[in-house]
């Protein structure tokens, strides 16, 4: 585990996750708007069918195709986003562990310094 590498990974993943969120939100909005439009078209078609017995129009099929594509993209991005969130969360946990270890090492070294451990001074018994 390397503090610098973990920090860099963390820094890199945050904007990536944010970008994914923005992209996912945009896709979701487009999926929702297409769903609404499709529902409207279906209702229109039913109405039209009642009046004239016309078959499904090309327009509705195109819309359904768009919805199919968008939903596929959206679901893929959400899966990717979930993976990125997991990576980010793991990197954060690693960073936290490193920080704690770092603090413990610093505490130990401060404590030892008082007893001459890392002070460079030699105790009487160490005198040659």
């Amino acid at each position, binding site marked *: 585990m390397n503090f610098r590498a973990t920090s860099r990974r963390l820094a890199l993943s945050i904007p990536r996750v944010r970008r994914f*969120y923005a992209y*996912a939100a945009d896709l*979701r909005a487009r999926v929702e708007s297409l769903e609404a439009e499709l529902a409207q078209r279906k209702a229109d078609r039913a109405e039209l069918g009642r009046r004239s017995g016309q078959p499904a129009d090309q327009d509705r099929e195109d819309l359904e*195709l768009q919805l199919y594509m968008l939903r596929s993209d959206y*679901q893929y991005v*959400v*899966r990717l986003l*979930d*993976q990125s969130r997991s990576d980010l*969360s793991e990197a954060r946990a690693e960073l936290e562990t490193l920080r704690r270890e770092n603090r413990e090492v610093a505490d130990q070294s401060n404590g030892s310094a008082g007893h001459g451990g890392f002070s460079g001074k030699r105790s009487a018994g160490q005198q040659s």
Partner: protein
Amino acid sequence: MINNPRVTIVIPVYNGANYLAAAIESALSQTYDNLEIIVVNDGSTDGGATEAVAARYLSRVKYIAQENRGVAGALNAAVSQMSGDFFAWLSHDDIHLSHKTERQIAYHAKLGNPNASVFTDYYIIDGTGKIIDEMKWDHAYFVRCPRLSLLGGRINGCSLLVPRRVLHEFGPFDERLRFVQDYDLWNKIQTKYEFFHQPETLIKYRSHPEQGSLREEAIREGDDLWIRMMNCRSVCERAQISGSSKNFLVEMAHFLDEYTVYKRAVGFAREQASRAVSDSLVSVVLPFDDEIGPALKSAYSVLCQTHTNLELIMVHAGSTELSSAVRTMTRVDERVTVIAGGPSVIGAARDRGLHAARGSYIAFLCAGDVFMPHKIERQLTAMQDGGYVVSHTSYHVGASRDRLTLPTVHSGEFGGKVYPTILDECPIATATVMLHRLLAAEGFAFTRHFGPAEDILSWIWVAQRYEILGIDEPLAVIESLGTNSPGNWKRSVKQLEHVLKQLRADPVHVQYRSKIEALEQLRAQLVELGANDRAESGAAAFPA
């Protein structure tokens, strides 16, 4: 997108003299003109009969003869030499209808995605070429969940049109596999790209006794493949497909049992489904401030749950040092994690916990509230069984300690598709809510709706998008709800005003005028009640 792209039709054959000519003729009769046809003789041992058939077409097809490497090896040999932008596979005993390539190229162009692969419906023919059935899939099934193309076993390899670049990115076909090399590769491709259903019948698939899919080795490969395909689906992907891991596995077991011979895979799916609830890690997010007593009470109620596969994420939103009691808890029980939230509003603290959560499901708790011991187990089971990604329950109100029986709020009666009902009637208590992690990936966050009623607005956001499971069983005791003091009325009025402001600003919510008017009336009533109460107690009415 390439204009008039080149399509390579690959015909691998092993001892297939009986049907090969019909297959090659069907490829040659395609109405699409930019074609390349490759016939791979995969070491046939029929005394040159297969080669003799292929020899009749040498001026019009590319012919490769090689030592026997199996279907995967034959396909790989062709792919390495193909010049087309798209790959289409034609088994030597199947038939492409004459307009197959033309229609698929047109459909692919309409999709507008260069990495999309396309598959179609198909006829089943017998040894004599007579149509005995038609496999026509319900297109809406794929539009709802595109992933089901492969997991529902709907892809017939010979109906496919795959971009060469996709094949090169994920190929080659695994030559160690003799029977399921195609689905094995499609499964790899589906980690990144999708297979789209074209609702047209464009091939004839021959069903005849010489096919080897019932051999023991084929069944072993198939079992392994389907177990692999189930295993590699993430928790989120399973929820996208079936609402929960358990439902996904139950549906897979049903499909495999009904339509395939892979009984080991069926057993695997059933066994995994039976453990889906106990295997699910649940994260409970508990924000707390400097007052430690209520937080500890809540924390213990989590750690005493009958569902033990959980993590408790305590988000310290206070300003003082962490108390020794909390530090001890993290040492004694490794399921407890404390993260620093800094002094912040509760929504931000909850979001910190949400981001740190590793669980497949996430529940929330407020300091002072407690879970009943079987709360998580009951709620999780109901969500997994029903395929819901969000749920809430009824609860007891624990503020009045002088009563032997705690009053119950039957908020769990509220469930289903509750939008727009929820706009003026949101009985959901946050400490009873459990979410699937899919919601977090889809953008759920409390801080999306900063302000005094962020939880109410969050549940409205959720109700707009998902069906909510209401469980009418009191599974939590909630003390954090206010009593009927004027101060809390004041808070309620403030919350209502914030909700109203947000609803009026939203182009969708604002269409439900009657809901907004009902909330306005409620606000006026609350102000009046508050004024009366203050007047009775001799104090001035609080400003609205």
